[in-house]
């Protein structure tokens, strides 16, 4: 068990390290650098030299990678390209806002999607199942920005219940993001529910067809007890990894949703940085997202190892 966890941890660290190398080398190998990106047409002669000197691009690539990654480890993300602002300060509040948005979506989405999945799985091929499953397919196929735009059109413009966009500054206290916050997290919740619900439904159907469920039924165990005590814990195990993948997807999906709602989070900072061709900021945000992704998946892996002894022995045999 411990050996497995250590192995997963090591793999996660290797992945993070590789991501940092890819991000660094990717930018390094491509034509141009942070300076040509900012200066664009003026990137020649004296201006370019001066900019490179300020940004420290004259030192060799390896030394810069070491400095950059050492900075990452200590939480120093460097300075942005144009404003010469500290990236850590720039990112701080926005990271909090993005996490707030994701937490809102997850807090509502996970219980709701498990509930819907169980209901759909128990009512297989009857109307609740058909209704939820069709809804899930629709939610999964429609792009986030389309769903967001439709919600704004209906709830903000036609019905006028909530404001369409967020105008609160990034460093405001969390409570000030209400009620604008609701629509943005609804979009994320909707898309997230679709993925998790489908998984829970599929595994619920599988578990309910199992021998031990039949055994319990024959023994005369009440139906609700079979569902909640015997079937559900088993049905939720495979859902853990899907939830982790969904969280990871949320990190990408959040970019577009934040732009649509003008929400001051990490995603919008990223899009602004790309428009300004601010490479250091883009690199830093990409690293944060990658680390979160690896971390979330690691937690899910360890959690499912801890909760599922079968997986443990199976893994031990295989490796």
């Amino acid at each position: 068990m411990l050996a497995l966890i250590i192995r997963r941890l090591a793999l996660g660290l290797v992945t993070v390290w590789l991501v940092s190398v890819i991000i660094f080398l990717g930018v390094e190998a491509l034509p141009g650098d942070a300076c040509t990106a900012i200066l664009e047409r003026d990137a020649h002669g004296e201006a370019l030299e001066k900019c490179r000197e300020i940004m420290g691009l004259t030192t060799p690539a390896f030394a810069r990678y070491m400095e950059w990654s050492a900075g990452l480890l200590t939480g120093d993300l460097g300075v942005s390209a144009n404003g010469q602002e500290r990236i850590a300060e720039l990112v701080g509040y926005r990271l909090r806002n993005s996490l707030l948005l994701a937490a809102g979506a997850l807090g509502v989405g996970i219980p709701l999607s498990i509930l819907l999945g169980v209901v759909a799985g128990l009512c297989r091929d009857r109307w609740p199942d058909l209704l939820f499953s069709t809804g899930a397919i629709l939610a999964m196929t429609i792009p986030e920005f389309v769903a967001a735009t439709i919600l704004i059109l209906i709830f903000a413009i036609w019905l006028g219940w909530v404001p369409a966009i967020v105008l609160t500054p990034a460093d405001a206290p969390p409570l000030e993001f209400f009620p604008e916050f609701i629509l943005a997290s609804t979009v994320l919740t909707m898309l997230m529910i679709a993925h998790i619900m489908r998984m829970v439904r599929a595994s619920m159907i599988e578990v309910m067809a199992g021998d031990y469920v039949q055994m319990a039924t024959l023994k005369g165990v009440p139906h609700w007890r079979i569902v909640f005590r015997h079937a559900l814990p088993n049905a939720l195990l495979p859902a853990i990894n899907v939830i982790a993948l969904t969280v990871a997807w949320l990190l990408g999906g959040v970019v577009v949703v934040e732009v649509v709602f003008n929400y001051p989070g990490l995603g919008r900072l990223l899009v602004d940085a790309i428009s300004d061709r601010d490479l250091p900021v883009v690199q830093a945000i990409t690293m944060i997202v990658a680390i979160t992704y690896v971390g979330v998946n690691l937690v899910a892996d360890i959690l499912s190892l801890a909760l599922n002894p079968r997986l443990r022995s199976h893994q031990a045999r295989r490796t």
Partner: protein
Amino acid sequence: MSTAPPAPRGPRSVEVLRAMIARPSGAIGLTLVGLHLLMAVLSPWIVPYDYKAMDATITLAGPSPAHWLGTDHLGRDVLTRMMLGGREALLVTGTATPVALIWGGLLGVYLGLKGGWRDEVAMRLVDAFLALPGILPLLVLITVFGSGGEVLMPTLAFFFGIPVIRVARAAAHEVVARDFVSAARARGHHPLDIVRRELLPNVTDTLLVEGAMRWSWMLLGFSALSFLGFGVSPPKPDWGLMISDARVYMSLAPLGVIAPVIALSTLIIGINLSADALAKTLGLDRSRKAVI
């Protein structure tokens, strides 16, 4: 996994297509995709107006006999732009998907057969690339290269090929353990021969279903990029861009948003339904597979 003999390609694909149409999801999906392709091909000849033609006197007009879906904020005909709006997306993703499928599929099958340290190193790299979810890696490249179709096509082909490696490798792993591969090895066939004659025919079905799904995700990614302003450059019509432009005037001219939304959604739903029908027809149900 197909156990069908490697019959000539033509009849089998016709057979699969027929079986797909027999399912309701396949019939609806293929019809939607077919209509979209038809519209993309024919639209330059049948659109009522020039997509660039502006008319300042009728900006944000509602539907009328002259402009069925009204006009946008520059007085351009929404119907015209909606009909043309999928061409760039279909061209870029339609080229990038097969490329992604081929390079990812070949590399994955090769790794699945070869194994060893190459496999281990490649899989760690794949993991690292997949740790950048969604459109993030695309955004990083766009920061450096700038946007536009000629940048997006290779970029999409590259990034969407990476998850294919994993799928193809897993599919190849299942086949490698079978007797006929050992037999081919024992006969002393060259590894490349084994890949071509034994492995590829057996993983094609998996790759086809994967490709159909990748296509819809790529389309999602492409239109999201357009929406963010990093995809198709104006004044070229594109659904993502149209939604992003028209959304500001949504309360005045909702049709400007609704039209491209419906066009984009029907195409993506069509592809998804077709992929679903294809998977079921080929006996590969994706319902248990995780989503990435």
